[in-house]
């Protein structure tokens, strides 16, 4: 759920973050032209008020299950001082001129919009007050608001927002930068557990998702691509596909070579998706040879070990003298860690509906990143971006997968070619074979502790993917300041890279979802070498400074706070556990959030792992916008992490992904889901996001719990239960 923090995206983030920090609106809030229905006045681009007092608030960002369609409007409604029951929420179209960047990624929406969305609401409220003051011929300062009404305190005159909205055209919008905001103690909506706005529609199965879109005259499409990424079509039997009843067309798409663009393939279009799919089965497509068809997971592991035997291709960071410190250490530990490619598999398979007419393209898409999709479609089809409209549907999960818009450009191309509105729908097999996978990775560690139990040396040779160590594949990089850098006097990070023909990309807590496992597991190994308690050892490592690495660095004080809290919550060190049961802990900082977790697990004699419970202490600042959504995100992220640790692996063979569906790519199910207890520490820092940061520590906390239960150190994901037999 984030962007790769490189290149243009990285710059955009920095600009957006900087402007948020500077209390600037990151987007225009002037009313959108043509937004007014009869009698319904737009106060600004986000807020319309109907004569009956119903307030419509625009939700700017894509909804992927993170609850943003509810929580961002809650922030506006709070400052507008309108009862939540009077609020209707409308999903905005892709419209960056009005709304700025609209994306679901990086757990960024709350930190980016906490300030500006309050100002959007406050400005609208101020305008309603001014309209009342004008009507009542009194100073605005004599008026207050309450539950969707403006009240003149002295005379007790009152008017509803609905009655006042029409008069707001006569008042000027106050300066958003200086408009007064509520005292948080007066909040009625922010901080109150609020069910998702779409709940009634979700539980009754009403159409909400991309897959539910229907257009008049719409055809259904399926698109077959090569198992080896970007291989071209060598031959296929289009006539056999066309001969299937219900098939309306079949054609080859040349496509390009960029893995994130339109790839070569064969489209089959029909009256129903089932007909199109039956047609596709007749294609007997043969694919051209491709230079990456020899790549394999086994080959990568072998090559990584070869590279690890030599010097890293690049030393990214070297503090102190790591080799001398290893020589002088009381104890040293050497360990190799590895994790596999994994897939996003959002529950709703990739799909998109496109309609091309008179040079203009209209798109309905479950996407996390609509503007990027629009630019891709414009480039590929040779259209102007302004001729492309994108409607954002609710997404049946995202997890970072829908930051890439490959399915959008496919739908657009097929619709233009088919000369009809087309809904493209992938099979689950298409999805698992054509993901932007979380990249695999290999870490070769040496570490040392002194006699007092301090880590004195930490050396990591990270073998990753890319054209060079400083040009890693998407989400395959590692920051030189990644923890525990800066906390250990003698620290070295070396990197080597292997070329890769498999598309990779951000998956929920990118980087962190793998790095937390290796770092927090190896820290546990060093704690064991030092004969220290894992929590006490970690607190010692975190030291006694507040900020490490200067402002914008790592707030060790906040991390110590959550580590201590989770130890207390879980009864760490005080709980008597059964044989082959254990508790493990881990912490991780990502997406501006500080998280520490404890997993309690039991390992049966046959090696099967049962997670009994997980405790989470979280610090995401002073205010939780929607406690219900927040809890759900944390519980879900933790179980998502456990699912990855226990089950998930995509194997590359002959340049292609092997696993095709949930029978061989299992996800965690009900019986394996532990209760997850969560505590939010309220600290005096700005509110930050929750889609991602709870996930990373869950994986090493489980691995460390299994070690505590069995004495077996797991250095590879997913967990191999055959190593855990009694």
């Amino acid at each position: 759920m984030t962007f790769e923090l490189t290149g243009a995206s990285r710059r955009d983030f920095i600009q957006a973050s900087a402007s948020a920090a500077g209390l600037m609106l990151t987007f225009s809030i002037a009313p959108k032209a043509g937004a007014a229905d009869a009698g319904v006045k737009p106060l600004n681009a986000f807020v319309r008020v109907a004569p009956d007092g119903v307030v419509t608030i625009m939700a700017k960002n894509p909804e992927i299950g993170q609850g943003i369609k509810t929580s961002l409007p809650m922030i506006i409604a709070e400052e507008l001082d309108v009862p939540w029951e009077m609020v209707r929420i409308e999903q905005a179209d892709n419209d960056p001129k009005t709304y700025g960047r609209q994306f679901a990624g990086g757990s960024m929406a709350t930190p980016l919009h906490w300030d500006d969305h309050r100002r959007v609401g406050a400005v609208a409220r101020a305008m309603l007050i001014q309209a009342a003051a004008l009507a009542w011929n009194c100073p605005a300062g004599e008026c207050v608001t309450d539950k969707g009404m403006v009240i003149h305190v002295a005379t007790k005159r009152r008017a509803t927002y609905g009655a006042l909205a029409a008069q707001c055209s006569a008042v000027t919008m106050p300066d958003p930068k200086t408009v007064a905001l509520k005292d948080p103690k007066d909040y009625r909506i922010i901080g109150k557990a609020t069910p998702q706005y779409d709940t009634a529609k979700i539980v009754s199965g009403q159409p909400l998702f991309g897959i539910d879109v229907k257009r008049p005259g719409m055809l259904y499409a399926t698109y077959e691509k090569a198992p080896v990424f970007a291989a071209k079509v060598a031959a296929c039997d289009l006539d056999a596909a066309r001969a299937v009843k219900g098939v309306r067309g079949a054609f080859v798409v040349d496509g390009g070579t960029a893995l994130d663009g339109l790839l070569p393939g064969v489209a089959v279009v029909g009256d129903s998706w089932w007909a199109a799919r039956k047609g596709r089965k007749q294609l007997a497509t043969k694919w051209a040879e491709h230079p990456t068809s020899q790549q394999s997971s086994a080959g990568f592991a072998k090559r990584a070990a070869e590279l690890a035997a030599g010097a890293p291709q690049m030393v990214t960071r070297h503090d102190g003298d790591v080799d001398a410190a290893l020589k002088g250490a009381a104890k040293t530990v050497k360990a190799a860690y590895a994790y596999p490619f994994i897939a996003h598999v959002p529950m709703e398979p990739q799909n998109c509906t496109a309609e091309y007419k008179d040079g203009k393209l209209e798109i309905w898409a479950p996407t996390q990143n609509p503007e990027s999709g629009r630019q891709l479609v414009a480039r590929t089809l040779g259209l102007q971006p302004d001729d492309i409209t994108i409607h954002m549907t609710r997404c049946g999960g995202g997890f970072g997968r829908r930051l890439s818009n490959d399915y959008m450009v496919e739908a657009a191309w097929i619709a233009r070619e088919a000369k009809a509105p087309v809904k493209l729908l992938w099979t689950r097999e298409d999805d698992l074979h054509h993901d932007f996978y979380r990249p695999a990775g290999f870490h070769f560690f040496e570490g040392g502790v002194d006699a007092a139990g301090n880590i004195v040396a930490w050396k990591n040779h990270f073998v990753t993917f890319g054209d060079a160590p400083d040009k890693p594949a998407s989400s395959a990089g590692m920051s030189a300041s990644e923890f525990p850098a800066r906390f250990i006097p003698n620290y070295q990070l070396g990197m080597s890279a292997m070329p890769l023909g498999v598309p990779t990309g951000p998956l929920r807590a990118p980087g962190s979802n793998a790095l937390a496992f290796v770092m927090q597991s190896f820290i546990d190994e060093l704690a064991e070498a030092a004969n220290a308690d894992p929590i006490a050892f970690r607190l010692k490592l975190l030291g006694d400074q507040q900020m490490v690495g200067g402002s914008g660095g790592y707030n060790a004080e906040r991390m110590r706070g959550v580590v201590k809290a989770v130890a207390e919550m879980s009864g760490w060190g005080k709980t008597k556990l059964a044989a082959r049961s254990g508790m493990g802990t881990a912490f991780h900082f990502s997406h501006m959030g500080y998280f520490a977790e404890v997993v309690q697990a039991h390992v049966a004699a046959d090696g099967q792992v049962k997670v009994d419970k997980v405790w989470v202490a979280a610090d995401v600042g002073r205010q939780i916008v929607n406690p219900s959504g927040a809890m759900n995100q944390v519980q879900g992220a933790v179980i998502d992490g456990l699912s990855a640790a226990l089950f998930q692996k995509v194997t590359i063979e002959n340049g292609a992904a092997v696993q095709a569906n949930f029978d061989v790519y299992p996800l965690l199910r009900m019986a394996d889901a532990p209760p997850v207890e969560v505590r939010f520490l309220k600290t005096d820092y700005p509110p930050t996001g929750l889609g991602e940061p709870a996930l990373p520590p869950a994986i090493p906390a489980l691995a460390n719990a299994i070690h505590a239960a069995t004495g077996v150190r797991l250095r590879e994901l997913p967990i191999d239960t055959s190593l855990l037999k009694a």
Partner: protein
Amino acid sequence: MAYRLNVNGKVLTADVDDDTPLLWTLRDTLGITGPKFGCGVAQCGACTVHIDGAPMRSCSVPVSAIPAGAKIVTIEGMAADPVGRKVQAAWSELDVAQCGYCQPGQIMSATALLKAKPRPSDADIDAAMSGNICRCATYNRIRAAIKQASGQPVEA
């Protein structure tokens, strides 16, 4: 050929090939889109409907295999079902969903469970819900909602 299907108490006609799964007959031919496509191989449960009261994965039931006169009930029919309504209410009150895509299938499985076992144990819940994947992993709340709908105490 033309199949007459009793869906949510109405007899509807669908002219589809014999091998067309019920899921696609419902979604593309009859416009009943509550049942969702997730895997196509009866692994994820997003497409769960009731056929004569039994929870079935509609992606893997060809329309020709449905007995004549069988009563098919989808998530759209739950509002007319007293147990289904209770389950939906619990799902709403506990704000179970994240993305919401799997939840129609979860609700169908939970409703079938509660009809068979009005006060299910944790083990009953594990067994009955094991065919439904929630990729967002809302399992804690699904369990709580089933308990709430069955009048049992709900752990925080």
